[in-house]
């Protein structure tokens, strides 16, 4: 398995091959977390400090999206091992998953500054650092972190997705398109990657829409909702492009789909 590495994205954790090859395994069970010990592609290397059974507990909780419980464990580890970069990484990761990027940021900055060999997940710390910076509005910092990660792991689809988002926000549309297309290429046609592909297609459609390539935008959005029917954003975007194309009945139908998805998710947030 030499050359394999683990990669993660918001919803799916994938394992991809090294530079030059496409990813071959998509690990669906773990949302945005490192793989458990022994999983294909799990990194190996020297671990700072003595082995701690709480790492496995943390990973399990993350895999189960039990972020509150994971936070408690991570905080306990950090309290016991305040200088442990791996502990800082995990607490930063948990806080990032809880959308508390401001608190996660210094932890992930510490982890990302560490040597690649400092702890097993160290090479991927820049990826999460990139998301934190992006969420806090620091596009330049996010770009730097994701670029560092992409240089180390050029086949990591979610990093290319992130670089596409940043390029879009910086109005570098050809670069955004290339990044989304690269992410889609890496995701391929794999089973289990549908949601990730839909996410990239919806953003690729945004690039098309910005460039008034309405027919191409429609295709992107349509493919996105075909791949992931619950993609409310994509339904909304499809409705918008259909309105622009003068197909108001089709647009209304797409908008109704988005409204239904929105209605189901109402009440999940406070604001």
């Amino acid at each position: 398995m030499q050359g394999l590495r683990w990669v993660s994205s918001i919803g799916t954790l994938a394992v991809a091959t090294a530079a030059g090859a496409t990813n071959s395994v998509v690990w669906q069970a773990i949302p945005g977390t490192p793989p458990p010990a022994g999983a294909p592609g799990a990194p190996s290397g020297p671990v700072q400090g003595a082995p701690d059974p709480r790492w496995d507990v943390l990973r399990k909780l993350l895999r189960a999206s039990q972020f509150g419980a994971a936070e408690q464990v991570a905080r306990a580890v950090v309290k016991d091992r305040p200088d442990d970069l791996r502990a800082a990484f995990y607490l930063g990761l948990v806080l990032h998953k809880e959308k508390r990027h401001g608190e996660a940021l210094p932890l992930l900055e510490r982890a990302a500054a560490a040597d690649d060999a400092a702890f097993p997940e160290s090479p991927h710390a820049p990826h999460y650092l990139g998301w934190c910076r992006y969420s806090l509005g620091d596009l330049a910092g996010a770009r730097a972190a994701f670029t560092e990660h992409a240089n180390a792991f050029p086949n990591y689809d979610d990093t290319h997705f992130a670089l596409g988002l940043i390029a879009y926000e910086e109005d570098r549309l050809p670069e955004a398109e290339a990044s989304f297309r690269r992410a889609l290429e890496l995701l391929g046609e794999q089973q289990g990657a549908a949601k990730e592909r839909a996410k990239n297609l919806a953003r690729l459609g945004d690039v098309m829409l910005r460039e008034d390539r309405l027919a191409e935008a429609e295709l992107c959005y349509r493919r996105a909702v075909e791949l992931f029917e619950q993609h409310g954003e994509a339904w909304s975007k499809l409705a918008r492009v259909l309105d622009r194309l003068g197909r108001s009945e089709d647009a209304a139908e797409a908008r109704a789909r988005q409204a239904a998805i929105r209605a189901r998710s109402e009440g999940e947030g406070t604001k």
Partner: protein
Amino acid sequence: MMRDSRIFATVVASGFAVSCTAIAQAPARPVAAPTIRFEDVTAGSGLSAVMTSGTLPSTQILEVKGGGLALIDFDGDGDMDIFMPNGATLADPEHGPGARLFENMGGMHFRDVSAAMGARPTRWCFGCAVGDYDGDGRDDVYVCCHGPDILLRNLGGGRFEDVTAKAGLGDPGWSTSAGFADLDGDGDLDLFVVNYLDFDPAHPPAPAAFKGIPVMAGPRGLPARADLLYENRGDGTFRDASESAGIRQGIPGFGLNLAIVDFDGDRRPDILVGNDSEPNVLFVNRSVSGGSLRFEERGMVSGVATNIDGAAQATMGIAIGDVDGNGFPDVFTTNFSSDTNTLHLNLDGTFFDDRTAQFGVGAPSRPLLGWATAFADLDHDGAEDLVVFNGHVYPQATKVSMDSDYEQAPLVMRRAGGRFEVVKDPGPGLLGAHRDRTAVFGDLDGDGDVDIVVGELNGPLRLLRNTHDRADDWVTVRLKGPAGGLGHGMGAVVELASAKEPARVLARRWVWAGGPFQSTACTDLSFGAPPEWGPLVATVRWPARRDGGAVVSSPAEVRRGAVAEIAYPQARAPQR
């Protein structure tokens, strides 16, 4: 107070009058790179008032919106005075410290004339709208309240009369913002009132949670309150036309702000309502000449209801400007933290497109919770810049806990080519973290640049002076509308163009109702006019009227360093 340092000249051409008010004393300065710089001149200005809004730390949603502000020339002397409705406290919502009125004495000095107002609201007030609803030549004020709203008729001499009941107004709900505009073209000002939600201070809802932290509840989970449209009968009274005009289409939203402006170029004012956490609504004016008020709701279809992802946003502040120069008013809105402010380009009068990313106005706003905002050419380089005042609603907010601090500095963005860039040092007046909510933008000292009054939650008003101070790179246009209540040309658009190429519009401003946040956009239109633009002309496109009045005035020469007063044409001008 009338400034005495100006020279007036009147020109009559093509059936309309232009009065140029020149600044005689300000010398031209050497040309330097455009900069944006403000200083806080509150101390010693006489503008001394605290904007009450509950107590700190806020515990209920009623306390966190803050109040509004208005620029109003209440004494008709040609400069902008300041009105602050003011709030109250949960302990006694009906009896706060009371509204405040400050007379502009010139030179950034103000005199507190609140005590002489006569009718002076003490109820918990929010936004306000300014307009001459009875057509007597004096600007009146509509005050949005938690509890019955209040209409203050300007009697002259700084005195006001509460004519709410007489006018048929006084909806008892919680309203946040309002705007006056002639929506049916009959020559008087109708009124649109934005309502928020039903909230009983005696029975506050249970706390909610944000990012895992217990916080005050709302707006989600509380009952939204429908907006109101009042038709001016022309006799000093209003008729509730909400139902018949189609304003009640769809479900009510948590309304916070509005913009009444002609979005589709048909010379009829349309109404955009910014809803908190719900899609915005766009009421497109379908009223026909001689008929009754009629609107079609097209928020979703137009694309302005949500951001690019189809997500409803908080939509506190609204700014209107022609960002892409296509002649249609674009919409900038300010939003919650961990979201972005949003710029919707008006593509063609029918469709809007979220171009937040294209213009770079999204990412810098992510850690901020935005309120009052405005486009204004602060450095007079010819392109409108952007200011947003910020502050979180949750006292618990910190960068660590909520990715956003409770007190936040203003966000100042300068237009640089095709993007807006954050101005890191906009001067001491725009640095420093506050709990800002409302603001009004206008030339308060008569030097041609846009100054700002800011209202902070339970904090003192701040008077921010633009230090640009040049006499040769600006034009202000003041419209004198047709008789009746349209004195400020509400609904008109002014185009500034090169005198050599009148068809090539260099800048465009709308006289619109609504405003930065719970406040009133200034009706004096400030243009930066860099010398390289050469001689300039202004063209006014007036709103449509039932009587078939003129629509477009002929280009009128305007001078730099002067206020150009452009009157409604006496004779029919050629229509375009």
